[in-house]
């Protein structure tokens, strides 16, 4: 059993930095050529969409969750945030507008629900 010593904390921080930075750095620094293979080129062009899609779904429906399972009210708030973001994006609003618009919509619905 380790103790919470200064050495332990510093080593933990070093490990976290090295792993996090290492993962970000290795691929960016080692791969400097433009890849011309059709598959890999297409794959890496689609990667942002695949990764972002997986990061949004289904997590966006649970960001309001406070307990072990999500309540109907929390789910509705999350769904309103999602819908607002999609609608504003369809109108091609900037990132900040969409982001703040969704926050305001969720805030209003949360306040309304507390009144009911």
């Amino acid at each position, binding site marked *: 059993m380790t103790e919470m010593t200064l050495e332990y904390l510093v080593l*933990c921080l070093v490990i*976290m930095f090295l792993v996090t930075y290492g993962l970000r750095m290795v691929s960016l620094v080692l791969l400097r050529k433009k890849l011309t293979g059709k598959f890999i080129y297409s794959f890496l062009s689609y990667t942002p969409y695949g990764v972002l899609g997986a990061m949004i779904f289904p997590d966006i429906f649970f960001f309001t969750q406070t307990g072990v399972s999500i309540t109907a009210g929390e789910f509705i708030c999350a769904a309103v945030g999602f819908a607002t973001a999609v609608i504003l994006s369809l109108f091609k609003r900037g990132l900040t507008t969409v*982001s703040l618009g969704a926050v305001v919509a969720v805030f209003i619905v949360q306040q309304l629900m507390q009144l009911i």
Partner: protein
Amino acid sequence: MQNTKFSMFRRGAADAVPVFLGYFTVAITFGVIATGKGLWSWCPIIMSMTCLSGTGQFVGIDLIASLASFAELFSAILVINARYFLMGLSLSQKLPPEIKLWQRFIIAFGNTDENFAIAMLPEKQVTFPYFLGLMFSSWNGWVWGTVMGVFLGNVIPPSVTSAMGVALYAMYIAIIVPPAVKSKPIMTVIAVACIISCIIKFVPIFSSLGGGWSVIISGVAASALGAVLFPMEVTQDD
């Protein structure tokens, strides 16, 4: 010349305003939780300054507070953050050739989910000053949020914090919806990624995989499918 570099930096910093807001509120929570676990106040702050990584830090602080072994900490952070490797591959293809090697070492530090997402927008020219601008906003949001959480606690009312939880998701949506509407292949890739990620989350056998693996498996599978079904013409424009 200085002027144009500065204007690119400013554009990057402005584009990352939603990241600043999203990070700031999440980082306050991080600072509050870390302090609640009885860690010295400098520990979460240094962690935020050096890691700039949401989920990784929440898990990391948990493990540290429970005196986990170094091997455990190492492997947990490796799995949770493995997606950064994939994002680095993808971003490397977007960087223009004039970006120097030492600049790549710096860009890598700021290649978080959110900065990556903005940098990969098709209309963005990712110059070094532009990326520094993205890093400037996100780093400051994350670090100052942590400082606030550690020293002042929950300064933002819980109702606001809760609503702010949607900020970064909404930004992701703003990034992927316009190209998805225009392109069937992109729409397909997103849909497939969402479906796989939902399966991993809700099907009990897979749900033990956790968020780190889920993003990689869903992202890789969907992008690979996209590359097979809708191969792109290789363009060498820049």
